[in-house]
């Protein structure tokens, strides 16, 4: 409750954040696993859109 300007509270570190391993990072750019994930994501989106409902 003060008008005094203080140093901007910028957060520069996130101690709880999980950090990806080298393998995870490589996997994110691997065309084969990403091709499979692409298909799964399309199916997921189609499921949500076509159903439009969550009965």
């Amino acid at each position: 409750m003060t008008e005094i300007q203080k140093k901007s509270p910028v957060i520069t570190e996130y101690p709880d954040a999980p950090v990806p391993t080298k393998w995870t990072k490589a996997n994110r750019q691997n065309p084969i696993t990403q091709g499979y994930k692409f298909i799964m994501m399309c199916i997921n989106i189609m499921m949500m859109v076509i159903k439009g409902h969550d009965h």
Partner: protein
Amino acid sequence: MARIVILGAGVSGHTAALHLRRMLGRSHDITVVSPNAKWNWIPSNIWVGVGIMDEKQVTFDLAPIYKRSKINFVQAHGRVIRPHGTMDDATPTVEVESTLADSRGEMITLPYDYLINATGPKLRFEATQGLGPDGGNSVSVCTADHAVHAADELAKTIERLKAGQKQKIVIGMGHGMCTCEGAAFEYTFNVEHEIREAGVRDKAEIIYLTNEAELGDFGVDGMMFKQSGYQQTSRMWTESIFTERGVHSILGAHVEKVDPGVIHYETLDGEKYEQDFDFAMLLPPFGGVGLTALDRDGSDITDTMFAPSGFMKVDANYTPKPYEEWEAADWPDTYEVPGYPNVFAVGIAFAPPHAISKPRVSPNGTVIAPAPPRTGMPSGVMGKTVAMTIRDRIKQGASVAAQEASMAKMGAACVASSGTGAFSGSAAAMTMFPVVPDYQKYPKTGGRNFKGTRGEIGLHGHWVKVMLHHLFIYKAKALPGWQLIPE
């Protein structure tokens, strides 16, 4: 013959117009009113805003599409709704103000049997002093024009970085009650990518400034995902991406003023701060576009049809209640305006019953909490649902029950994708199902179904985003088979 007037040619209004034309015979009259000659695929403005797409790739002229589809197009602003007509004629009408160069400002009266308000948001830059590109000190990516300007400013920033100058880049929310955190998150991701590609990442500090109390809230109260057999939160997921990309953050912030190079803001603890910047992309808060409603005798009945925010009241439960008592059932199903079974509001134009994220107020009484997002996919579904209701009522009678599509039963996707190459791009992709959490139905999984609620990072999200860009533009152009592409 029924006359249907649709105010707005964005995601929800354009979708409704195309489906109505497909579902109704040519004997019915469909008119779309929009102040802009062009349609804009707004999600791809993010790519325009970093200079990897140009304006032409995300916009196209509406007139030829409507001519081909036999839909009347009136280039104008909707201004006044007269749901009971006038003393002389009880036909409901809407008065619109032309935006065409040769008839600018002229008023036209359009009679209607059914009216859809799909006017989207008013970009309320005026809510924060100095906010926005038009006379303000920050840039925006909300329209294609804004995004082109943002890309120019970003290019100058990158030039300064290349010249060896350190630069502070702030991206986020220009007010405590903004929505669309997903868009700011995506822009952050893209700017970081471009600066890294330019080889000057070490000289730039990138700060995500947000009204969210914690990262990963996204205006939807955060999410829980299942990943590798563990439950993870969207907070951890977002913090992980920020750690990887070296993005800093300011949380729970309400921007009060933007001076050249300085953002003045208050945080949830009531303290006031200043943040200096060299480049700032700050989104404005949204409001209704300012439509007025008049009774037959000309008396103002705007407050019976519209909430104070300017958004239109629909079949939601607007009874004020505390966060703990919010329910999925508060959200509208049919988008019908109470008392007016021939008037509907869809997309951003409808008044939400309350926020989705927990409301928070600073000790100074400043509300610092995300407003609820109404993203593209639900907006399109709402447009189609209302089109089906109107079709049913025209074909089977005005008393037929309305079709339903609640945001508490619909899913949404938010894909933050950067880069252009087929194998060099990357994306952080989230899907949530449903958008509005149902804590009664899913008490152990953050109010959502784990089957549809996911957070993923990788090339595949980038491919999805590129695919959606092309599919939605194809669909919006009403090219052959467009109706097979879901909303």
